[in-house]
């Protein structure tokens, strides 16, 4: 029997999707086999992630840790670590990727490549959430970029090339500066201690002068702010989300945006505590700006998908506001809200894809009256919209209330302003509901209501919405220890 405690489960998490991707390319002639391979690989990854959650969910410190020499000459190591924060993100990734494979199931164009890219991206995202060596982290950070570029560029809609290139350039601009900052930090640390390493734990001990710390932190912050995205570096997002294929949008909104916040929590704040503390008001300001600005823009969108895309900017504004408030309640709320947003927005993007498949339009002007034509599908859509606008008892409410409570405790003004944002969220979400579900049906031909495949996608999401809304405690439990350590300026 294999000793589970020492078995490299984290490497297995990264390897399973890659193996699936390889299988897809090998079965390139048989699309059905590719779909099956992708589903098996994502389900296996989810099984491992869920197993880790059940087994280690209540532990403290590093639940899992793997460390091997990699590129000795530069002191780069293959270091993976799993704590409660990573665990939650890994679980969300594995969960959404299974659903993304189901979302992409009917895809007919270049099937093997499509699923191979989805799986490579899963590896990249999981790697980002697990890596503890800065170069390894950077490697995964870029690795999730390339598949998304192809997903948008090959399977996207209308202005897909523009959106794909813009997405690539924005993200790369931030991350290249981060690479320089990583090198700067590495050299600084090496000069002080004589040990040249990219290990996060070691680099945190680096003594930095005030201005150097500020510059390095600024480079990290820019890379992460582009991904989150914070206003004013958010402009790639509406294009990328709107033009991406449905599975791409689900992953973009559900996961890629979270890597930005995760990067701040795991790397930005612990590496540069003084600069980070000084930047909190700025982050709060940008977050509040994002909440209102994005909500306002979302309200006037004519395209349902674009509306949801802008709503993501607003929701992530709440998440960043919670970080900026910097206390246990707010930060835990932020992390929980990342999961919530992944579930609800992922569901909304998936459903807009389903509506688009039937109506062949995403324009609110061309939709309407869906409730009369496809009641079950409309019911689900209404449910996820309510969750998105923060109805008590559903998931987003749980996260938002924690963020607002925490924020009121330290920064009442920020909290009060953010309350206004909740009203804005209701406004644009109800407009989405009104534009799609209510009104006169715009056509006569009968549409199929929810199919089995679509049900398999939506039911788990709905269960998660209710579970996270009614009883979030199991998902907050793994966070207590990491958040406490984080606020003390530390990591496991």
């Amino acid at each position, binding site marked *: 029997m294999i000793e589970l405690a020492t078995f490299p489960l984290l490497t297995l998490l990264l390897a399973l999707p890659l193996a699936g991707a390889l299988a897809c390319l090998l079965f390139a002639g048989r699309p059905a086999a590719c779909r099956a391979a992708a589903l098996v690989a994502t389900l296996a990854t989810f099984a491992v992630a869920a197993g880790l959650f059940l087994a280690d969910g209540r532990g403290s410190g590093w639940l899992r840790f793997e460390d091997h020499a990699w590129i000795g000459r*530069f002191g780069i190591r293959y270091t993976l670590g799993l704590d409660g924060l990573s665990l939650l993100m890994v679980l969300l990734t594995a969960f959404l990727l299974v659903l993304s494979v189901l979302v992409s199931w009917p895809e007919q164009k270049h099937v093997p490549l499509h699923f191979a890219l989805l799986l490579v991206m899963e590896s990249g995202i999981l790697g980002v959430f697990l890596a503890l060596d800065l170069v390894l982290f950077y490697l995964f950070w870029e690795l999730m970029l390339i598949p998304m570029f192809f997903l948008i560029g090959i399977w996207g809609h209308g202005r897909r*090339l523009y959106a794909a290139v813009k997405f*690539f350039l924005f993200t790369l601009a931030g991350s290249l500066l981060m690479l*320089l900052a990583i090198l700067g930090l590495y050299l600084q640390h090496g000069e002080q201690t004589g040990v040249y390493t990219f290990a996060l734990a070691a680099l945190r001990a680096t003594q930095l002068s005030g201005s150097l710390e500020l510059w390095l932190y600024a480079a990290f912050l820019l890379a992460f702010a582009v991904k989150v995205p914070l206003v004013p570096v958010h402009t790639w997002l509406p294009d990328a989300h709107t033009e991406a294929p449905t599975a791409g949008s689900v992953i973009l909104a559900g996961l890629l945006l979270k890597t930005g916040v995760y990067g701040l929590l795991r790397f930005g704040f612990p590496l540069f505590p003084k600069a980070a503390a000084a930047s909190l008001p700025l982050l709060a300001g940008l977050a509040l700006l994002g909440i209102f600005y994005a909500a306002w823009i979302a309200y006037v969108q004519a395209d349902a998908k674009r509306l949801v895309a802008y709503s993501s900017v607003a929701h992530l504004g709440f998440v960043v506001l919670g970080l900026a408030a910097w206390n246990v309640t707010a930060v835990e709320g932020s992390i929980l809200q990342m999961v919530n947003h992944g579930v609800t927005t992922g569901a909304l993007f998936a459903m807009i894809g389903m509506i688009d498949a039937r109506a062949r339009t995403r324009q609110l002007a061309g939709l309407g009256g869906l409730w009369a034509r496809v009641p079950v599908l409309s019911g689900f859509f209404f449910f996820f919209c309510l969750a998105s606008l923060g109805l008590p008892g559903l998931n987003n409410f749980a996260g938002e209330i924690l963020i607002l409570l925490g924020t009121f405790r330290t920064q009442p003004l920020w909290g009060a302003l953010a309350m206004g944002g909740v009203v804005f969220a209701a406004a644009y979400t109800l407009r989405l509901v009104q534009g799609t579900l209510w009104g006169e049906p715009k056509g006569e031909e009968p549409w199929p209501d929810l199919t089995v495949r679509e049900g398999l996608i939506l039911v788990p999401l709905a269960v998660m919405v209710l579970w996270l809304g009614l009883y979030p405690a199991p998902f907050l439990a793994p966070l207590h220890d990491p958040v406490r350590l984080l606020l003390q300026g530390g990591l496991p």
Partner: protein
Amino acid sequence: MNWLDLVALAPILVLLLGSTAILMVGAWWQARRPLLLSGAVVALAAALCAGFFPPPVLEVAAMYGAGPYARFFTVLWSAVAAVTLLLSLRYGEERAFPGGEYTSLVLFAAAGMALLSSATSLIGLFLGLESFTLALYILIAFHKQGVEGAEAGLKYLVLGAVATGFLAFGIALIYTASGTFHLPEAVAPLAAGAQMRPVALLGWAMLLVAVGFKVSLVPFHLWTPDVYQGAPAPVTGLLATGSKGAVFAALVTLFAGMPAGGELAPILAVLAAVTLLVGTLAALPQQNVKRMLAYSSVVHMGYVLIGLLAGGPAGRSAVVFYLVAYAAVTIGAFGVIASLADGDGEPQDYADFRGLGYRHPFRAGALAVFLFSLAGIPPTAGFIGKFGIFYAAIQAGYLWLALLGVLASLISLVYYLRPVIVLFMAEEEAPVRHPGSAEEHAALLVCLVAALILGILPGPLLDLIGAVIP
């Protein structure tokens, strides 16, 4: 020169004697395929000889090193020659290249590159440089029916002659100042307060101009796009990787003895900066893959120059690693073009590549990997190469060059992505190209594996480079 010296030069003798033998055989027996294949075998034999046959002496006739550094590059250029010959098999068949002459010239060029890389004196440097340049003059214009080939050959010849003039004059001045051709002693008069310093500086400046022509640094780069476009694709691969790489390999030896903080450093820094900027901006509007790769090579030489300028063990090993990574990737990229070529010509315009990602998935996928590697996206060899260069630059205090390098990398993504977009995301499809021969697929697979292995597990090569650099 005695017997031991000859033994030490064995790998290069294998290349030269093989080259001569194939030329002779080719005059009587004009079977193209066996000649090219035996050329590849000779190149591999030279590589094996260089890798596993330890030299009895470390320096030959005070002109060429035979130590680990020289041997390292002999292996590299022999391998490049072998890949070039494999990629030329079908390409040469369809254009009726005379097999004996072609093979012989490629091997001769490889020998010249190996000599240049191992030069430890200015005379050795001159001889090595001229010997492969001579071979390339002919190879570039080898396709007799092509008009562009003749134009490219002539351009390379005229500018090459100018560069040779500069080089010879520069060496003469350096000799005047130092009284020796040998390195690193010939660098001594550059030290502050040395006698004849102005003469030495002038000599080095002229040498740099000649080098600038050869590796196409801005403003000496204007020949590059025309020559790249006109030369047969496999030859362009050899030209882009070997001729430039060998010059930089010799420069590493040259700069190893250079006193720090001289007048040359700021000039080189400005040269690198201008090269990066001009090359990047010129590559942006290109519509022809070979011309784009030409400007991209200009930019890459700018990166290598940053590494050279940064100096120290970190800078030197970054340069060598970059050269290896660039060689694997670039020869692969031109190899894809060569393997897609048929009797009607090479696909060069972006439009010729439309939708080929689904018609020729292996080669299109490989080309995409090569382009991502040139752009420095992990996990490819190009990323580790740039990582090393940026690291060396920051360590040596050239933060502004590193920032400029990052900016150039970012813009470069736009022109590297354009062919990728055309390959995989175009609406229309270009006509099907040649399916490619088994040898071409094998050669491209070698380059592809190298591009990925050097990106994922660069450790062994980095350690090897750390052990061989002067």
